[in-house]
């Protein structure tokens, strides 16, 4: 889990960075990236635990179709992390019960 800064084909442009909060801890996010990307770049892969068996879940389809990556964003639960763009000061909480 890491950011890509060098690539033989892709032009990796520099972007503004800012803080968002994940479970109360401040992490660095880059302008224009998705919540899923920020979490993965910061080593967080389990975005929630399932209600019945408490199993960890995270990104699966990556394009907003499967809803496996849902997480709480700015007090709204079940937000698809893979298609939601971060903003400065965003408050993200992993979900314990869904």
């Amino acid at each position: 889990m890491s950011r890509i800064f060098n690539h033989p084909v892709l032009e990796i442009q520099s972007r503004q960075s800012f803080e968002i909060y994940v479970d109360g801890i401040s992490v660095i996010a880059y302008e224009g990236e998705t919540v899923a990307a920020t979490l993965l770049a910061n080593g967080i892969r389990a975005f929630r635990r399932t209600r019945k068996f408490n199993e960890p879940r995270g990104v699966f389809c990556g394009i907003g179709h499967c809803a496996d990556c849902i997480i709480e964003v700015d007090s709204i639960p079940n937000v698809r992390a893979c298609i939601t763009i971060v903003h400065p000061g965003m408050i993200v909480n992993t979900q314990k019960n869904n």
Partner: protein
Amino acid sequence: MQEYDVIIVGAGPAGLGASIEARKFGARVLLLDENGRPGGQLYKQIHKFFGSSDHYAGIRGFKIGEVLLQTAKDLGVELQLNTKVWGIFPDLSITAVYCGKSLRCRAKIIILATGASENALGFPGCTLPGVMTAGAVQTLVNVQHVLPAENYVMIGSGNVGLIVSYQLLQAGANVKAVLEASSSISGYGVHASKIKRAGIPIRLRYTVKRAIGRNSLEAVEIVRLDECFNAIANTEETIECDGLCLAVGLSPRIDLAVLSKCKMLYSTFLGGVLPWHNEDMETSHPNILIAGDLAGIEEASTALDEGRLAGLRAANKIGLCASNTYIEQKSVIINRLVSLRDGPFGERRRFAKASIWRNL
């Protein structure tokens, strides 16, 4: 309610191609896409495409998407992104959600170019974080510039599996193996060669038995298969990895076609259930046309040309394109499609397509 000549659902290569052709004849075209950026799967493709100059050979996928988009915009195609079409009605209106608001509009002709979705695979541990589709990895790496893991196992040696494996290498990741359940590599030789040259073993007749890990993926247990795809006892091997990619096929996204009661059929070689259509891209519904992966899983170049056919036919049906012009331009595109569906890989698709066209 806003009325258009043509509404196109999906702004990948098929939808973009259709919008350009229809607009050239002066049709009022509305092009919609659920994503925030058009181009479908093109904008994630960093490899150079091959084919002819009509298919932008030698140009990287994401650049092709940009060129098509600019052409559509320059022609005056109305484009609305972040718009998810959820309904289609007998009066030929569509309903969509855009930023939490509802949108409804109507057209004389609707072109569905909704593409495909990736297949999933079920096995113990398949829900562990770190197990994701090849497309998800491709999006994270090529669009978000993030590597979700360091060491990967890829399931599936079709073009998606091979290409994404190579893209992972380009991004600095390690691919430990590509697993292929059948006895031969599914994708093109040119892609397979790149993988082999990089030293990635392609394990034929292997599949995943289970994914192992506590809070996320830590290893994968693979098992050998016989000719009937049954697991052979005592052939298990464990590969340590934190990324497992599923590249196990694509299926046409048929929801809107089903909703509008288009006749459907099953095609083994084109991805499963899809709408019946003829060579002109017409469905069993008089005012609905389809194009691209929705009409059968192929590739971007065929999607683009099918989109062009659909756009052309739409213009012809509403009287903006005269019959002789239609027949002339259609035959140029059809010839290109025939050559795209040439060779050992294309042959199967060509026969599969032909048997659909005759099936009504």
